[in-house]
C-alpha cells in the first residue's frame, strides 16, 4: 500500500479532485460529499491491499466511480449502450460559446449526456489522466473510452453551443 501516507494526508491531497469528479457525476453537493466520504471509507477498509503506492489516486477514482455505479444500480436500472469501435466525431462549435460557459453551464451540459459519456468526459477535463488511465479507472477497454470521449465531447460542446446535436448512437463522420 502507499507507505507513509496517512489517512489525513491522503484526504488532504485527493478530496478536491474526487469531489469535483463526484459532483460532475451527481451535480448535487450532498450526494457528492457522501460519495467522496464513502470512497475514503472504502480506502480505510481496503486500501492496505493496494501494493503500488503510485496507484493510490487511480484507485480512489476507480472506487468512487464504482460506488457511484453501485448506488445508481440500486436506484434505477438504465439501458446499456455498446459503443465500442465507433469512430470519433467532431462537432460544429464556436469557440466563443465554450469560453463563455461557466462551470454550471458545463455541468448542465454534462448532465444531459448519456450516462456512459459522463464519467469519461468528466475525467478528461478534471484530471490529466491519459486515455489508458481513464479506461482503467472506468474498467472499459481503451478503444471504447476513446469512442465514448469523442462522442461525449462532441455532444457536450454541441449542447454548450446551443446547437442541435446528432444522436450519438448513430455513426457520424467528423466535420469541421
Amino acid at each position: 500500500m502507499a507507505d507513509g501516507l496517512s489517512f489525513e494526508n491522503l484526504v488532504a491531497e485527493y478530496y478536491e479532485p474526487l469531489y469535483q469528479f463526484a459532483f460532475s457525476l451527481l451535480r448535487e453537493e450532498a450526494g457528492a460529499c457522501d460519495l467522496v466520504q464513502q470512497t475514503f471509507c472504502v480506502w480505510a477498509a481496503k486500501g492496505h491491499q493496494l501494493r503500488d503506492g503510485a496507484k493510490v489516486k487511480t484507485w480512489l477514482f476507480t472506487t468512487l466511480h464504482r460506488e457511484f455505479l453501485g448506488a445508481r444500480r440500486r436506484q434505477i436500472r438504465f439501458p446499456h449502450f455498446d459503443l465500442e469501435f465507433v469512430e470519433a466525431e467532431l462537432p460544429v462549435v464556436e469557440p466563443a460559446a465554450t469560453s463563455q460557459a461557466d462551470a454550471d453551464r458545463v455541468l448542465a451540459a454534462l448532465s444531459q449526456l448519456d450516462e456512459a459519456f459522463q464519467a469519461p468526459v468528466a475525467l478528461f477535463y478534471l484530471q490529466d489522466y491519459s486515455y489508458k488511465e481513464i479506461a482503467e479507472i472506468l474498467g472499459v477497454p481503451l478503444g471504447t473510452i476513446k469512442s465514448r470521449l469523442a462522442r461525449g465531447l462532441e455532444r457536450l460542446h454541441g449542447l454548450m453551443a446551443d446547437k442541435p446535436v446528432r444522436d450519438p448512437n448513430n455513426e457520424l463522420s467528423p466535420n469541421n
Partner: protein
Amino acid sequence: MNRDDIKKILWLYRPGSLDAQDPEVLEALGLARQDPELSRWLETQSRKHQAVRQKMRQIPVPAGLPASIIREHHVQQRHDFWRQGGYLLAAAAMVALFIGLPVWLRAQRSPGTSFANYQTEMAAVALRGYAMELITNDPVEIRRYLKQNEAPADYILPRALQEAVMAGCAIESWQGSRAAMVCFRTGRTLSTGAQSDLWLFVIDQTKVAGAPGNSLPSIAKINMLTVATWNQGGKLYLLGTTAGEAELRKFL
C-alpha cells in the same frame, strides 16, 4: 494520414497533458503544424478544451469536507475498535470458560484432600456398594494383590482384627492416590447379597490433609457407618461397620 484522420486523433488532444506522448497523437500534431488550416483548427480546438477544463476545475468544493471525512473516519475507527474489542472479549470469555469449566467442575466434584472428605468418600464406598477385585480369605493373597497394584499392602492389623475372617479386597482411587480396601466378616448374619460387613481402608497418611496423628482409634459416625480412624507407621487406617460402635470396638 489525411486531414479527417488527423482531426479525429487531435479532437481528443489536450495541450500540456500526457496526450502528446502517444505516438499517434505526436504524428498527428507534427502533420497538423505543417498544415496552416489544420493548425488554426487545432488552436481553436485547444482553446475550447482549455476553456471547459478551466470551468470544470472551478467546481467549488465544500470547505468542511476534509474535516468531515476525517471525523467520520475516527468515529468508524472507534466503532471498529469496540466491535473488534467485543469479539476479543467474547473470545477471551470462551477461552476462560474452556479452561475454567473443567477446573471448576473438578473442584465441585472433589472438595479437596481433607480428612473429612476422605472419611465421607470411604464411608460412601462401603455403604453404597463396591466390587471386590479379589475374593479370598487368604491374607497373604490379599497383600500380594494390593502390592502388585501399588496399593498399601504393608498395613498392620490390630490384634482383634487379625482374627476376623477376610472376604477379599479392592483398590479405591482417591484424589489421585490409591487406598487399599480390605473386606472382613464380623461373624454376624450378612444381609442378602452382602459379602462382608467390616471394611478396612488404608492409605498413605501424607495423602490426606489434616489426618489425625493419633495412634489411638477415634470413633465417629458417618451416615450409617460407624468408623474408627487411627494412624500407624505413616498410614491412615479407617475401619468401618454398619453393626454399630460396640461391634466395631471388638476389632480394635
